């Protein structure tokens, strides 16, 4: 830990410069840090990530979470929903791109935004009419819980979610709706034990919301064929060709 003082000085100077440029107070934890002390995230990390590849944190639009705080009572953000490819639901690994959520989001959002049909009209929320326009909706979750459309959707405004206390939440705030019953999951989600954080362990904490992974009408994970199984026996050289 007896680093050359020059290096520390340079390090501090550089960091202070960076931090000031970003309008943050420089932290003094560059010095030998006792366990527990941490270098707080410099926002340059996120900027660095953004330049690296499309779709990573720097380009993700996010909004602060209302009503929950993350570990250490720190505020955090949720990624905003969008059907655009850079919305952050695909990531580049080496030379391949992989979806990072349980369900493929853009397909499920083929009818989004709701106002494209429901503009200015009050929604008739009758169970039997669902099949007409929303054939993609398999209402497993409502069927099992005895819910109807209006249990979650605001009848007066289809773009809003209805909470039990009469308040309204936007579609990007599904955690407020789901968390009403699934409070344990919501706590874990806020803490980091449930859900997905996007891109960095460091830098601003942006997480995905409930509906990014769970289809709200059919929330259980869908089964699928996994990526190829490992080859237990080693490839022998004569196996070539």
């Amino acid at each position, binding site marked *: 830990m007896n680093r050359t003082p020059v290096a520390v000085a340079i390090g501090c100077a550089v960091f202070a410069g960076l931090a000031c440029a970003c309008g943050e107070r420089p932290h003094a934890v560059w010095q030998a840090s006792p366990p527990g002390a941490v270098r707080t995230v410099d926002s340059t990390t996120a900027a660095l990530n953004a330049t690296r590849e499309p779709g990573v944190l720097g380009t993700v639009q996010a909004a602060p979470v209302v009503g929950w705080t993350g570990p250490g009572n720190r505020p955090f953000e949720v990624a905003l929903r969008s059907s655009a490819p850079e919305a952050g639901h695909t990531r580049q690994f080496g030379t391949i791109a992989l979806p990072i959520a349980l369900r493929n989001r853009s397909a499920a959002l083929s009818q989004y935004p709701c106002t494209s049909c429901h503009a200015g009209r009050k929604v008739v929320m009758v169970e039997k009419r669902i099949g007409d326009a929303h054939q993609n909706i398999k209402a497993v979750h409502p069927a099992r819980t005895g819910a109807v459309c209006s249990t979650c959707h605001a009848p007066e405004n289809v773009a809003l979610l209805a909470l039990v206390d009469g308040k309204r939440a936007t579609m990007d705030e599904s955690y407020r709706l789901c968390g009403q019953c699934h409070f344990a999951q919501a706590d874990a989600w806020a803490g980091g034990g449930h859900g997905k954080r996007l891109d960095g362990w460091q830098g601003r904490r942006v997480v995905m919301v409930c509906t990014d992974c769970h289809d709200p009408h059919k929330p259980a994970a869908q089964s699928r064929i996994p990526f190829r199984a490992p080859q*237990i*026996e*080693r490839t*022998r*050289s004569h196996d070539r060709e």
Partner: protein
Amino acid sequence: MHLKPFLLSALSSATSGGRRYHVWMGSLTLIMLLGAYAYSVQLRHGLGVTGLSDHVSWGLYISNFTFLVGLAAAAVILVLPAYILEDVDFGHAVLMAEAVAVAALVMCLSFVVVDLGNPLASWHLLPGIGHLNWPRSLLAWDVIVLNGYLALNLIIPFYILYSHYAGRTPDKKKYLPWMYVAVMWAVSIHLVTAFLLAGLPARPFWNTALLGPRFLASAFTAGPAFVIVLLWFIRRETSYEIADGTFAKLALVTTVAAQVNLVMLVSELFYKFYWPTEHGINARYLFFGLGEHHALVPWIWTAIALNVLATVALMIHPLRRNPRWLMPACATLFVGIWIEKGIGLVIPGFIPSPLGEIVEYRPTWVELCVTAGIWALGLFVLTVLVRVALPIELGEARSPYLEAGPPARTVRPRSTRARHEDVRPVRTR
């Protein structure tokens, strides 16, 4: 001043011989060439040409290595009485045993080198320009003890032979301290190699306190057994005298060690199978197989059968004293220990893997050829060493610069008694 004629005489002893000698050396050379070719294939394509895998990452090479360390260490059983306890009987045998140690060590080091994936980087082991992770890594210890033991076993016999060649009595003060070192060292090479395996908590099959003692027991079985056969051959083929007492004592050592070895095997089996735990699964694979995987089962039972048969034969006095029984028993024991300690010790440690996956191991032709080549190399080295040592010890080869140059033969009659007075290294004055 005698060095040049010594080397020339050694060269001529090693290169001259009857037809059988040349056929023997020729076939060894041929096998070595085959091994060299196989190794070149391995160098070109990587260790992928062997039967090894991420699951069974050590195989035939390291198996032979662990076995041969035992053979090398066995020289101590002769060195100890001959030089330090001044037991008359072993005087003639000890140089041969040291030749066995040298040959075994050459094989050991060769097996380690051929097992390296990146042999060009082996200079990284050299302290100074490389980085030897000593004392933390047991492999670093092994590198040191093996090379040290090789040096000891080269230098001491060289000094004694050279002194005899130059017509001097070797100076006890000069070599006896090194003899003490060599005795400790012999035990250490064995224990270090055992600890190399026993120190791995990842492999419960090896991670047992019994491993070190078992290594020693098997070493003192296989080593003297090999030396007995070698000495018997030398006595039959040359005029070099080896007293009957030598065989009797060596056979006794072999017998006791073989018994101890069996006791330890039984203890191991009881521990693993009376109450089989998770940690006994490798032993289960070795002795009984797991499902359709049972490649080692016939080997280990063969080894146990050979060991038990040979040990029982050795335990019967009339049989042990009769060379017709002693020689086959020793050879059987040697093979039995080779299977038990080579194949039956290293390979099952890897099957199943720490995550419970079972991949079996089957050596390829490359491994078999390289292994055969290294054994041929070891036998070659052994033959050359014995060949060089014999004329000197028989008094046939003597430095031409010796004063009062009567032919050596007349000075040293081949009576055992006379030789003892003159040549015996540790005789007190």
